């Protein structure tokens, strides 16, 4: 199996502050971590590798310091790490990022195609949740977002069964490989890596890809130039409450009907 994981280095939000004047994140002096959902994606890859045997390639786009995130990925069992780093990538929004990542993945797949492409469901510093889907679309592979569990992976029939969390509940989906999955927290716990892996991580050095080499990218689609997004305002959206769920099969029809009537009366509808 050939697994690709795409990760992002983000500021550690336990220490994060918002600049009250500009509304932007204060990044100075804040330690960086692997975006937690991406770490879960890595944890899943690590689990699958130990279970089925796999080669894990990890890519990230970021400044030279993002090397630290890739080295940490080796602790999860990554075999190849690639840093997309170039001044021309700076200021990329989700459109430019998806383009850059997708082109790189296409190039890498030319050497050996990927069976599974793992992304975090979103990055905690932007929360857009658009990059994974954007890449899937560009690669023309099926996409499953918000995955919380891999139930089954059949390397013979090349099929995967996953659980996907939605506001309405859990969906159980089957997809053929290759597939791109965006991961939620529950998908995998970071492993307690052995010493051999920590040593390998400390010694590892990522391959660095620029905007031209080895993948020639279109300048106009990169970084700030390729990013039409303009931030209007940053705010925390209200959480949609999932509502109360009662199963008729468990509670019985009359209880459920009664509950509905009471609820409607409380709201003044009845």
């Amino acid at each position, binding site marked *: 199996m050939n697994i690709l994981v795409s990760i992002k280095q983000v500021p550690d939000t336990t*220490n994060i502050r918002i600049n009250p004047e500009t509304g932007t994140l204060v990044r100075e002096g804040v*330690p960086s971590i692997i975006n937690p959902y991406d770490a879960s994606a890595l944890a899943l890859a690590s689990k699958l590798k130990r279970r089925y045997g796999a080669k894990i390639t990890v890519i990230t786009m970021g400044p030279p310091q993002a090397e630290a995130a890739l080295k940490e990925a080796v*602790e999860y*069992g990554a075999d190849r790490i690639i840093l997309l780093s170039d001044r021309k990538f700076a200021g990329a929004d989700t459109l430019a990022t998806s383009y850059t990542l997708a082109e790189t993945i296409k190039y890498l797949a030319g050497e050996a195609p990927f069976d599974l492409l793992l992304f975090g469901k979103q990055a905690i510093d932007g929360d857009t949740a658009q990059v994974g889907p954007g890449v899937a679309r560009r690669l023309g592979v099926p996409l499953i977002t918000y995955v919380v569990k891999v139930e089954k992976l059949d390397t013979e029939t090349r099929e995967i069964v996953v659980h996907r969390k939605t506001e309405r509940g859990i969906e159980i989906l089957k997809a053929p490989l290759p597939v791109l999955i965006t991961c939620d927290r529950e998908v995998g716990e970071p492993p307690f*890596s*052995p*010493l*051999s*892996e*920590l040593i390998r991580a400390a010694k590892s050095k990522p391959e660095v890809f620029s905007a031209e080499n080895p993948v020639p990218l279109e300048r106009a689609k990169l970084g700030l130039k390729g990013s039409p997004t303009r931030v209007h305002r940053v705010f925390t959206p209200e959480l949609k409450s999932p509502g109360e769920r009662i199963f008729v099969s468990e509670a019985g029809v009359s209880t459920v009907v009664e509950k509905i009537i009471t609820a409607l009366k409380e709201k003044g509808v009845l």
Partner: protein
Amino acid sequence: MSNSFRYDVVVVGGGPAGLSAAMTCARHGLSVILLERGRFAGAKNLFGGVVYTESVLSLAPDLFSEKRLPFERPVTEEGWWLLSEDGVVKITHTEKGLYEKPPRAYTAFRARFDPWLAQKAEEAGVLVIPKVKVLDLICANGKVSGVLVDRPRDWESSELAEVRAPVTIISEGVNRLLTQKAGLIPRDFTPEEVALSVKEVIQLPKGEVEKRFGLSEDEGLAVELLGEATLGFPGSGFLYTNTTSVSLGVGLFLSDFAEKGLKPYELLENLKKHPVMARLLSGGETLEYGAHLIPEWGLEGLPRLCGEGVMVVGDAAGLVNPLFREGTNLAIYSGIMAGKAAVFAHEKGDFGHETLKLYEEAFRESYIYRDLKYFRRLKKFLRENRSLFADYPEIINRVLHLYLSAQGRAKEEVFQEIFGLFRKRRGLTGLLRDFVKTFRFFKGW
């Protein structure tokens, strides 16, 4: 044996002592692994802190070619603030010499300084491995031949990994569990032998550090706080200015916290409420809070610094001089000395005590040892002269207040009041005794 990794030297703990030792060994061509339990070097650590440039230069001679120094501000004004209940007498010093390049000392954060040092160590070839806790030493026939860690060797094995080396350097800091296991100390420390210090980093609005402390952008203030800061108990507080924040802390002997039922954070809260402090810190936002022990067992508690295949450096050995804010620099110096002994041992191919004692000998010739001897009575002196903390800061505040507000009164009366104050608080013989004792202490008698 298949469970072990082999190196020339294994170092336990990625503080300044361990990093210095490791760096010294690696620069002489030895293969060195350094194991640190924190997420990165410095992650779990905290200090005041003032770093003395000379010690850093002895590790990184090209320090000033760095794009960004791992420090906050050069220290250009230093001294003591004697706090009374609501007042302060400031005794600080500055002179041209403190502005010369390179600056003598800098304020710094461990979370930045240690990773920088770790990067230097990596550049020297040290394999720095964080997130690994050393559980035990591997000993046979009184000889240490490596360490046992809390991680398995590889994905397939569940057994804990061993890291073997003919030389193990213990730089575990104040909680010296392994030092004890190595048989270099007979017992652990008592609460009388360590200070517990709490510290906050308080962020001030941009430009306010300069405004409030009368500094320009490349000036820094570092003062120790005496008197009310410790509620009159032996100990001290500190206030160090960083680029846009202030490090404020206070520490007492652990035994005093326990005996008086004081809570460390209450002591710090109390200090922050002092009118002088409150004014200086108003509108500040706490970025960081932490507590840490400081070894003050001094000469009495000094371990044997080396055994068979093992050496101990830095805080684990108790190399701290609280009066002069020395700890980080002593950690660095001891690390370098031990590192040199490890190199010598590898040249000789002998790792016994007889060879490693090169470190102990160098140590005994250094000023660190001379100071430990000179101040061997420090704890006793502090404990027996509590009035230095409980009475004098208050008296000095009162005296200055009386003198400075004497206008419109008969000065004879004012002076009588001043002398009366001394007489009441200490008595004339008390004064004399305090003076003689202090003099004797600083004479090293």
